[in-house]
């Protein structure tokens, strides 16, 4: 097990910026308002029988002013660059060259969308008998947009964030679905806590409105079909509804934040991750218990924000874990935002920090009893992220 817990002598790490662009809206107020109203934005028709949480349209120009830059990106990158810009705004460091020239980036990313017309064109031509040895080569050479590759490369989300905002520190891209988002936060936190870094931009983005991704998840029968239901109510109709979202955080040492007069939303006290074997029933639940035990002591007013996907058996195992901690009010980001894959964990941290800074947890949206009402202001929120196939992570977000 690897972990990053604040150790004696290590600096406190604050969350000083949050950027959100989701299916519920852009910015903190819009997302918070939608959560309060239990508003969920799902599209059951556009990709029927599959269900997605589409991005609520944003004006990309406000964060990506050059049209040329926008054209060089596919949707997943535009969403991410947009949310990253909002996070820099939120932290009050947009355009601050001194800070942006040294900020460290850890981005959780998948890959970019394919050109479905090219793929379908090749396959249907082959179905009609095109079988010359160089047929695929020739079609790809003539049909692929030369710059599409750059819109697909995983590390070009970070690259585009750097280009658009003039970032000049370090840049690392982690891949590996859900847990990549947790590991990104873990590494950024440990680097700041140990003094290797003062300030970091951490997050991810995901375009859930993609049939090429649906094919990949359909291989494992993971897509939610026909009818939307909150994640805890999907046991007999399992699956995840892909969601579009970008979620970025500015993490900063307390000293660095105080020196520039920045106010924290909350502090990120610990991020722990692991890889359960998931060979037998109970493996994942046991790993979540181990992670829970590794988090620093919780004696405040606690809550849990879960990234449960709705896919089985992972969701049932997580529910088993949550039942053992039933005194903690639980909220599911999967119900409200859909499954945003690499972005789900940073999104969970963002909402935890937001809830702490606003002095209230958002209301439950579940009829199974997993999510219960919470009175008063949460001071400690545990973010839980268990991958639909592999990878488990947990974070503790606390009031400063």
């Amino acid at each position, binding site marked *: *097990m690897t972990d990053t817990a604040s150790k004696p002598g290590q600096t406190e790490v604050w969350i000083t910026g949050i950027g959100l662009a989701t299916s519920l809206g852009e910015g903190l107020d819009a997302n918070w308002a939608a959560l309060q109203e239990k508003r969920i934005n799902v599209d059951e028709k556009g990709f029927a029988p599959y269900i997605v949480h589409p991005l609520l349209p944003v004006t990309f120009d406000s964060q990506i002013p050059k049209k040329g830059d926008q054209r060089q990106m596919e949707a997943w990158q535009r969403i991410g660059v947009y949310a990253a810009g909002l996070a820099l705004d939120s932290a009050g460091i947009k355009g601050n060259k001194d800070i942006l020239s040294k900020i460290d980036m850890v981005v959780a990313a998948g890959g970019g969308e*394919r050109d479905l017309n090219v793929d379908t064109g090749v396959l249907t031509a082959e179905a009609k008998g095109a079988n010359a040895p160089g047929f695929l080569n020739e079609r790809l050479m003539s049909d692929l947009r030369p710059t599409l590759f750059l819109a697909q490369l995983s590390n070009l989300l970070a690259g585009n964030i750097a280009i658009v905002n003039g970032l*000049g520190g370090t840049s690392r891209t982690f891949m590996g679905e859900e847990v990549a988002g947790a590991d990104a936060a873990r590494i950024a936190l440990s680097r700041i806590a140990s003094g290797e870094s003062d300030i970091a931009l951490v997050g991810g983005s995901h375009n859930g409105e993609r049939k090429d991704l649906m094919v990949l998840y359909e291989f494992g029968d993971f897509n939610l079909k026909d009818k939307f239901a909150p994640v805890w109510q999907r046991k007999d109709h399992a699956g995840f509804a892909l969601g579009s979202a970008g979620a970025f955080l500015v993490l900063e040492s307390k000293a660095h934040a105080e020196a520039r007069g920045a106010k924290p939303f909350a502090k990120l006290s610990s991020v722990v991750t692991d890889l359960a074997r998931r060979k037998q029933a109970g493996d994942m639940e046991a790993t979540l218990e181990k992670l829970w035990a590794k988090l620093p002591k919780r004696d405040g007013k606690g809550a849990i924000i879960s990234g449960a996907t709705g896919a089985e058996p992972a969701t049932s195992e997580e529910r088993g874990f949550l039942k053992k901690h039933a005194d903690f009010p639980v909220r599911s980001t999967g119900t409200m935002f859909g499954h945003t894959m690499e972005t789900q964990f940073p999104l969970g941290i963002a909402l935890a920090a937001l809830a702490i800074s606003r002095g209230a947890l958002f209301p439950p949206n579940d009829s199974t009893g997993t999510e219960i009402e919470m009175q008063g202001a949460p001071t400690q929120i545990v973010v839980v992220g268990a991958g639909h196939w592999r990878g488990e992570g947990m974070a503790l977000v606390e009031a400063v």
Partner: protein
Amino acid sequence: MTAPRDKLGRPVVVVTGMGITTSLGAGKADNWSKLVAGESGIRTITRFPIDGLKTTMAGTVDFVSVDPFSSTGLSERMAELVTQEALEQAGIGARGDFPGPLFLAVAPVEVEWPQRRELGRAVGAPDFTYDDLLRISGGGKYSAYHHRFMFGSVAAHLAEAFGTKGSPISLSTACASGATSIQLGVEAIRRGETDAALCVATDGTVNPEALVRFSLLSALSTQNDPPQAASRPFSKNRDGFVMAEGAGALVLESYEAATARGAKILGVIAGCGELTDSFHRTRSSPDGKPIIGCMNKTLADAGMTPDQIDHINAHGTATPENDKMEYNTTSAVFGDLLQKIPVTSNKSMVGHTISAAGAVEAIFSLLTLEHQRIPPTINYDNPDPTILFDVVGNKARDARVTAVMSNSFGFGGQNASLILTREPA
């Protein structure tokens, strides 16, 4: 060797195991003997049809078989082989029980053409849409492809096979990925989170679409005949890089932990540095400042000055822009000292192993330190008169080498450098 901590008070990080596979062959012995002999691993592609391609050669690893074939499967298999070799040399932990985390540099993953074509055929009609592909993807028939094409699948497999601890990290910093995997391991040991780390980098992505993608960006050499002469770093007639496959694995340990268990120390990762270039997606800032800054950061991290570097293992891709930029920036950092620093590019022989290159070249740098012999840059018959490196051209050179700087630069403004030494500074 005395000090367990470096000048900055951090644990010294040493290498106790290495494994390597490239188009030259499997293992350190085979690779090293061919590398110093100036052999090329570049050949005409036979894995798939080359009709209609502008570039028809690559440094493929054809001696490792994977069934059913996929680039991700090949990446995984090569990573497994090099890890086994590294662990055997290190003699650390127990079988299937490595006492530290895994940092894996791996190419981005996606469903590949053989699988996509299988779906296309399964639709069973001459005319169909993408929705038809989607409709037949479920039901469990292709469930193995879900696992295969998860980004985290290679790391998950390695973590389970070798018993690494915690969540394995899969990373991509484009052509700097291999160096980043080492940097993450070094940092984890320096922070005291672990005494050992397994850093692996692998790339098996010579497939039609990957080749076309680089080709459309005009990044690849088209000097197909003879393929062995295609990769021409620092030459006037260089015209692009040559795609290649390979993998490298390094077992990193704190000096203290390595000596406590009596391990043989193969070298030291004295410094790591990284600096983002926000100028352009594929081009370096014309003033070279990010690369210069990256090298300076690395020197500072190692607590060293330019005069202490006596060999540079260049990124040396053989693209017109890279080699020129690399010379300009390196000379800005090293000044007059550069005339006396032999420089070589392993890519002249093994090609550009992309995600694996940083680790592959770090291993070659460590072997250079061990053998006190610098592998040549082959195909160096027509030097670029504007690149005034002391290139180790065509023939290996015996030299006193105590500290090597190894550079990696990638798309997306990724710059990373490493400094490797024989002994703690």
